[in-house]
């Protein structure tokens, strides 16, 4: 077992209820420490379940998840978590919420960074949580998670409620944490664009399974977008993720297994294209990480 994995799943599965209602299944991947990982997928794909499993807030039905080299429960003091609906105690004020963070994390509370996150939102410290807007609540929830100075930060749709300005600023704060302390960050989103510049690792979740996992650069390098005549041949040797014929032209996203014949024009795909092609074609073979286990 490699000790430098911040997060590692082995055949992880979670079923809700007794029936065949799998939120996540057969999930194996490894996320090295210090990465900023985007968990991308459509709504209901299993992103939240995956994060809750990693945070030790729910127990897996099968398989295992290893967090910072140990069980999620044992790693919990070193993990920060922000749930999708940003739960906070509505009766507390902003200042009280931060003081609670300090009291409940006495070993490593970074009051300065927590206050900085809150201050950026021009929040009145005396305001009650119940009076805040969605974006302001997100800010307080992030302050609590970042103030804990975790080694692994799990964020479920952290940017959904934020305006573009706040999104940029808070993403900057998160990246600064990653740069300064080597914090591993895992954040989910169904909007790829908001994570593209900030993340270097991707977990693409679709239909409760991992569709793609790995370094974004490597994933992009492993795929080609090709175009050629509709009757051209020679794609058979490669893994075709998606292909489409428009008139006389055939375009495809492939995982080349070797050199491409000359009748094809090849382009580097964008991350968006890569993700959409995989989500549109759940039948295409998944690309598990090469460096897994």
């Amino acid at each position, binding site marked *: 077992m490699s000790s430098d994995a911040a997060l590692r799943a082995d055949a992880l599965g979670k079923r809700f209820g007794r029936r065949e209602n799998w939120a996540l299944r057969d999930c194996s991947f490894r996320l090295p420490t210090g990465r900023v990982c985007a968990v991308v997928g459509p709504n209901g794909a299993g992103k939240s379940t995956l994060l809750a499993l990693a945070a030790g807030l729910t127990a897996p039905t099968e398989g295992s998840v290893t967090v910072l080299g140990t069980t999620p429960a044992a790693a*919990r003091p070193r993990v920060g978590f922000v749930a999708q609906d940003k739960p906070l105690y509505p009766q507390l004020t902003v200042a009280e919420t931060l003081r609670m963070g300090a009291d409940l*994390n*006495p070993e490593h509370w970074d009051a300065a960074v927590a206050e900085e996150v809150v201050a950026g939102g021009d929040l009145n410290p005396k305001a009650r949580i119940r009076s805040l807007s969605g974006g302001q609540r997100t800010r307080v929830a992030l302050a609590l998670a970042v103030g*804990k100075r975790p080694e692994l930060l799990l964020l479920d749709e952290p940017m959904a409620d934020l305006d573009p300005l706040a999104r940029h600023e808070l993403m900057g704060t998160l990246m600064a944490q990653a740069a300064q302390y080597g914090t591993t960050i895992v954040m989910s989103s169904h909007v790829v664009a908001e994570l593209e510049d900030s993340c270097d690792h991707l977990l693409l979740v679709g239909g409760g399974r991992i569709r793609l996992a790995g370094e974004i650069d490597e994933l992009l390098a492993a795929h080609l977008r090709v175009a050629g005549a509709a009757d051209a041949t020679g794609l058979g040797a490669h893994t075709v993720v998606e292909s489409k014929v428009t008139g006389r032209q055939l375009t495809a996203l492939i995982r080349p297994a070797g050199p491409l014949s000359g009748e094809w024009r090849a382009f580097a795909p964008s991350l968006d294209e890569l993700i959409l092609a995989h989500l549109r074609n759940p039948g295409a073979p998944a690309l598990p990480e090469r460096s897994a286990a």
Partner: protein
Amino acid sequence: MTAVLTGTPVPRAAGKPRLTRWVLRLHRPALYAWAGLLVALTALLLGLRGPLADAAAEGWRQYNSCTGTARCSYDQDAIVRYKDYYNYATVALNALPMLVAGWAGAALVGRELESGTALLAWTQGTSPARWLAVRLAVPAIAVAAGAALLSWLHHLAWSAGRGRIDTAKDWYDRFTFYAGGPTAVVLALAGLAAGVLAGLVLRRTLPALLVGMTVTAALRGVTEIALPHLWPAVTRVSTTDQVPLGAGLGVDEGVITRSGARTPVPACHTEAQCRAAYADITGRWSTYHPYSHHWPLQLTTSALVLAVAALLALGSFLALRHSTGAPRTTEKATA
């Protein structure tokens, strides 16, 4: 655990997360309500023990000294007032376990799981098990202390009326019994545990409130059924022409035949039937608990309810562990 409620920043002894303070802060309204209820009931019970009992006793003295003359003047209002206030206080103490169960199920645990704030708490520097332990222990101390005070005062108030007020309740009146002793305290604690378990299992505010209260009411019902059997009862025998003996908590009674056998009271509807039925009967028997069994019964009931409360609390920890998947050996890092 540090039970400080001051808001001033104290130089922190590193290590221990201060959960207690935040349980108290988050449930401050409930704490105030509990304190208010304690003050009101304390005043009422002290009144019942003192002036109200004295006035009612005086009323009864006046009434009993009336010798069948047409005009008899006695303080009926004082008698009725004592009876009403006694009933209010007794009902309040009987309702307390249900009240605690509803609050624990809804506000203490159910709402936290429904809104997700429990997840927030569990991902701070404390384990879910510690979170639960503090959520059980802190209210348990507050509930036990308050309920102990009230039930002691209730017993004093009841004692003050005993033998002086003709309409005073007997010790085995079930509402009086469950208000004036340690059973009141342990039932409230069992209510707390039942509410917490309901909240953890159901994860919703309203269902947890209802189920917590129902379970507590059911537990109370079971203890009432079991009560007569929780201490060896006394049997007294009397002849047919004597008034049946045994003023107390009845367990069973019957008749004694000429051959000495003990049988149930025979059923008869007409005089002829009854004469025939009783022809063979020489006496009565009665199994019951006299007043001297009051405290033994209080203590055995309390022990029983306390055991159930402990099981409910254990169940809460198991339910929590089942849902969060925390293995047995996770407590070392933060505890």
